[in-house]
């Protein structure tokens, strides 16, 4: 249980930051609205991913699936930040 907890805590946080960052960089909305949308999405996303991590029967699966979600989002982050 602890391993799945840490998977959700760590990767869930990184995924939520990464996805929200992509939203900020992609959507053409004014700055303060975008920051608020990011804030409104980030915490539920983090908690949701934590729940998802708990739904796996093994911790290995949880780390793997979550990493698979994080990877493309992080690549897009890097791409968008370079092109900015």
């Amino acid at each position, binding site marked *: 249980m602890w391993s799945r907890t840490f998977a959700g805590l760590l990767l869930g946080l990184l995924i939520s930051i990464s996805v929200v*960052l992509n939203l900020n960089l992609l959507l053409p909305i004014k700055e*303060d609205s975008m920051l608020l949308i990011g804030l409104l999405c980030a*915490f539920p996303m983090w908690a949701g991913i934590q729940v998802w991590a*708990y*739904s796996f*029967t093994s911790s290995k699966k949880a780390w793997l699936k979550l990493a698979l979600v994080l990877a493309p989002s992080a690549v897009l982050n890097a791409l968008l930040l370079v092109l900015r």
Partner: protein
Amino acid sequence: MKRDALKALTNAHAWVGLIISTILFIIFFAGSLSLFREDINSWERDPYFTVGDDVENFSFDAIISQVTQDYNVHTHGYFILQRPTAEQPSSNIYFEEEIVPQGKLDDDQLQGPVEDHIDKHLVLSPDGKILGDGNAFDWGNFLYQLHYNLHIPEVGLYFVGVVTLFFFVALLSGVVIHWRKIISKFFQYRKDGKKDKLLDAHNLIGVMGLPFHVMYAFSGLVFNLLIVYQISYAVALYGGDQAKLFEAAGVVDVHIEETNIAVPVQGIDKLYLTAKESLGEVDITRISIDHFGDESASVTFRGDDKSQFSTRKEVTYHIASGRELYLTKNNYDNDIRGGLAVIASLHFGDFAGYSLRILFFILGIGTCYIILTGNLMWLQKRANLRSEKQNKFGLRLVKAMTTGGFIGTIFATAVGFICARVLPIDMLNRSDVIGQIFFACLALSLITSLFIKAQKQFSAIFLKITAVALAIIPVLDWLMLPQRIVAMFNFGHFDVLIVEAMLLILALCCWLISSKLVIATEPVIEQETNLNELIDNSIVKASVVS
């Protein structure tokens, strides 16, 4: 959802709930009481400083002149003054007092960290007279701080944030687990089955209060863990420049460098009139002064705009010149600023009077009941396991957490209220002593619970003691301060009654639950008596045979 996944999630739901249960109970119980924080503060303080509503004669300049005459105000510290209102006639002034004049530190003091100032809190009458020291009346604020950081310095805020995150996780996983039955079994409450009853109560209150719970989990996270996203935003979007992030979030910094030229603070009444004109329909309740007594000093007038939902406006002036430094004009509708203000209003339930706060209080105490039923179901499940599969210490620990932690929190709170009423108001470090008594009671409850085997009987007795302790508080109020409380009523202030009603409701709840527990334990006692009789009979028979 697959069966295995659902099973894993159900186990995780129970595990997460159990781990955070005691802390979450304290957070929710203290938070529910904190909805009436101002009433609790008034309950404790105002009987000693009963004042009328002569708000119109209030003069900032007269008070500031009085304070500077009596105290050495710390220039680098804060200076906050709450203006009296019709609801809150005694006002408060908070500042830092220099205890070692600047530039007069000796060699020993210069070598180590030096405490050169102390926090002061004075209570004022509406006409500006200093009534007494406010630091002695801090019980309401103690409960509030317990709610948001458990009085753990530095990391308490983040620790509560992490617990809130897991509360959110428990909520979401609970919804997923219960999803198929969420509509069809919405009102289901099987009062006859022991296990079903706990489960149904857990689901019923959980589902009915779901919007409230989600709002509290989310807003709590925003208050306690916002820093995580703040840092990531600042690093990734603003190249590490936090000032730019604050600017985008509608925060305006009007800081002026200190000049070290002493200038007395005067002319605040005149600036107040200018501020009222500039802010329009804003009820100014709070002023703050930066760099008190320095030529660079500025004053900020702040208040809520009653014509709009959850909108706070402010204006800042340079005191010496009267120059306007900042006025909330085009940034009060900044989405982040406005959004955070709405989240705060939702969390504190401060936008619809007492009715909303009473509803939030009931839902908050309901959440405490959800946490309790969750623990009881876990205990029941473990107790039904074969003895070789049971972790005896784990079982005892959870029982102690449930009895000592949950009832202990209510008991310690009741003792805190009693102390806040009976301890002399001029006692040294009065508020700190009350806080220490609270934690001592909680610790003692937990330790006692660990060593008691008959938990159900112990819970029943402990709840009864707690109920009596809670019910005694209104009695003490009327025995100790009857005339002062009546004087408060005459001025139209009923905070004492509100707090007493809240405590009596809690006392009634504790007594009723205790009575139910006594009924539930009676057959067990009877069974034990029968067993004793059987043993006695066997002994008698054995002795007869021998």
